[in-house]
């Protein structure tokens, strides 16, 4: 593994191996001094061309817990505003001594393009509506630690699948790891076709809920309201919102997940978000461990001793 660009580049054994490593880093993070010297002397740069809080901070936290140095690029204060191209920007970051670049960009395929331009490992921190592989890994780790397995679980992914890199990444990871994945959305928010995908598709959340072990809610992109993909937020909530009433109909042990940031009162009700069986904050914690595992895997081979 030289880059992490697309979760579908990893087979089941590779996914499980990364999750096993992540379990080890969960243990590291629970120590009184949650830090190991594994990547001392390495410089990890986060280049986020699109707004992000949790993913960028999570990568920085992971890098620091591995004793790496970090650099942060943010477009707001950069030469991008002077018209510098993506290619020149990342070549510059590499020339400054970055050993690994984490890239988030609004354009599909951006991280892959960057990996073609650079000689250092590149991690895709999200490219458009395409891929967000570390999100898939952290969600898989969260579920595996809660249930002790992924094989055979029923995972319902609910909401704006069409425009979601989280959905594309998670459904591939969960189905590769043996879960049965159902996509739940109105047709305007489903991909135009799911031919060849190992998923089932439903437009009725209430039919899927009683069987689900994991209900994975996607953020409703309220800024898409103008694109007329559904009539109104109240109508969305009535069909697909995780209300308290729907929460009550889940089977015992079932969990609710969300990649954040949440629209409380839209895809997830307050009471559901704050329920102990909602794993939203657990996902955030697991994100650090998973990203440690990824950074270690991509850079670890170069460590002396």
């Amino acid at each position, binding site marked *: 593994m030289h880059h992490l660009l697309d979760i579908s580049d990893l087979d089941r054994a590779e996914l499980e191996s990364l999750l096993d490593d992540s379990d080890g880093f969960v243990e590291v993070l629970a120590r009184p001094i949650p830090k190991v010297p594994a990547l001392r002397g390495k410089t990890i740069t986060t280049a986020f061309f699109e707004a992000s809080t949790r993913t960028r901070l999570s990568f920085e936290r992971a890098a620091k817990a591995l004793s790496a140095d970090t650099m942060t690029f943010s477009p707001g204060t950069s030469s991008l505003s002077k018209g510098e191209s*993506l290619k020149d920007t990342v070549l510059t970051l590499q020339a400054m001594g970055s050993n690994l670049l984490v890239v988030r960009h609004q*354009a*599909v*395929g951006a991280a892959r*393009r960057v990996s073609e331009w650079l000689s250092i490992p590149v991690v895709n921190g999200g490219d458009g*509506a395409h891929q967000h592989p570390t999100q898939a890994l952290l969600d898989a780790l969260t579920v595996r630690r809660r249930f002790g397995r992924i094989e055979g679980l029923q995972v319902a992914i609910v909401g704006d699948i069409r425009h979601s890199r989280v959905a594309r990444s998670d459904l591939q990871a969960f189905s590769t790891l043996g879960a049965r994945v159902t996509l739940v959305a109105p047709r305007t928010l489903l991909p*135009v076709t799911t031919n060849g995908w190992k998923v089932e598709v439903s437009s009725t959340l209430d039919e899927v809920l009683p069987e689900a072990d994991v209900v994975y809610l996607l953020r409703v992109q309220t800024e898409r309201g103008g694109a007329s993909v559904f009539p109104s937020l109240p109508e969305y909530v009535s069909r697909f919102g995780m209300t308290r009433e729907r929460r009550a109909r889940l089977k015992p042990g079932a969990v609710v997940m969300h990649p954040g940031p949440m629209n409380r009162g839209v895809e997830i009700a307050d009471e559901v978000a704050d329920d102990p069986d909602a794993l939203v904050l657990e996902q955030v914690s697991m994100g650090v461990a998973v990203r440690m595992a990824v950074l270690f895997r991509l850079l670890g081979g170069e460590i002396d001793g």
Partner: protein
Amino acid sequence: MAEILLAGGLVATPRGAVAADVRLAGETVAEVGPGLDPNGADVVDCTGCWVGPGLVDPHVHLREPGQEWKEDIESGSQAAAAGGFTAVVAMPNTDPPIDAGHLARFVAERGRQVGLVDVFSAGCVTTGRAGQRLAHLDELWAAGVRLFTDDGDSVADAGLLRRAMEYLSDMGGVVAQHAEDRGLAGGGQLHEGEVSSLLGLTGIPAEAEEVVVARDLAVARLTGARYHVQHVSTAGTVALLRAAKSEGLAVTAEATPHHLSFDHREVLSTNPVFKMYPPLRRPEDVAAVRAALADGTIDMVGTDHAPHAAHEKDVPFEDAPRGVIGLETAVAAVLGAVALGPAGVFTRFALAPARLAGLGAHGHLPGPGSPATITVIDPTREWVAEHFRSRSTNSPWRGKRLMGRARHVLLRGRFTLRDEELRW
């Protein structure tokens, strides 16, 4: 008067392809026949080659005026001649758009100054390509424009399209449509289907093209006017064209080398060189477009040569401008996609586009008295597309092994390409 003897080729004539020599005297063909006496002429070996009228591309973007960093009429003319062309029709989506007579005259004059190919400008249908009111059609006509299009966009208003078709039918002009419904296209990036769904990119359904073609054919029926479909990309459009032609409508169509060669699975690479509008379609669409070019439902090849500078294409797929270059690889790409002999090639690459664009000096099969505007194609020449005459290199064939290439080109009796070398 220096004579030239094109010797030993397979010549496309009104009687079909015949093994013959072609003697050129000045700007015209003197005679066509087997075993002609050299009699002091400059003898050009055409063994194994196809000899026919100079190729005509009804659809190129030369980017001048306004975007000369991508291409200009000089570099575009070089690319055209190197690809075997003697005439090109430059699309009017320049900056400013060619919507008035003086602009069309400028383009043609620049072409004459370069002198490698005849450059004809197409004209806008609407002022500024804005789709609101008719461009200066009479002025454009007087400046020699015969083909009218808002290429890059459809003429979306059917009433406006009707008026343009009616007005131009008085003169014999033709509207060429970039068929794409803006609402259905939805700002899409590639064909809507398996690949767009996997990549999370907005797709452009085949129907975005087909609804416009279907509507336009109804307007053509209403007006009785000529109508041309640019860069056909879908099986549905082919079916509409087939029905329209059997009904007797005055409709023609073109296909691009890239739509004949590649399907949307190429976009899985997210390599921007596969980004163009209309997008690469399904394999079944490629098969339908190939079959239509073979049987004549699609009349001609138009490259939609669309240069973009390297730095403009060296970005993520989603941020890349649309279009690929095609002039220098067109013959090889089409020969690789569709089984055509010399008669078929010259019909689709010369006769049909010359007729469409009203180019009286082009598209004539070699015969006594015909213009000495000739292209000699070596159909079995193997080569790799590496060095381009175009200012841009955004070619999906770049680095690929190809077969078939123009060896010699003459424009009015003068070599513009000899043994694959430009002469100018």
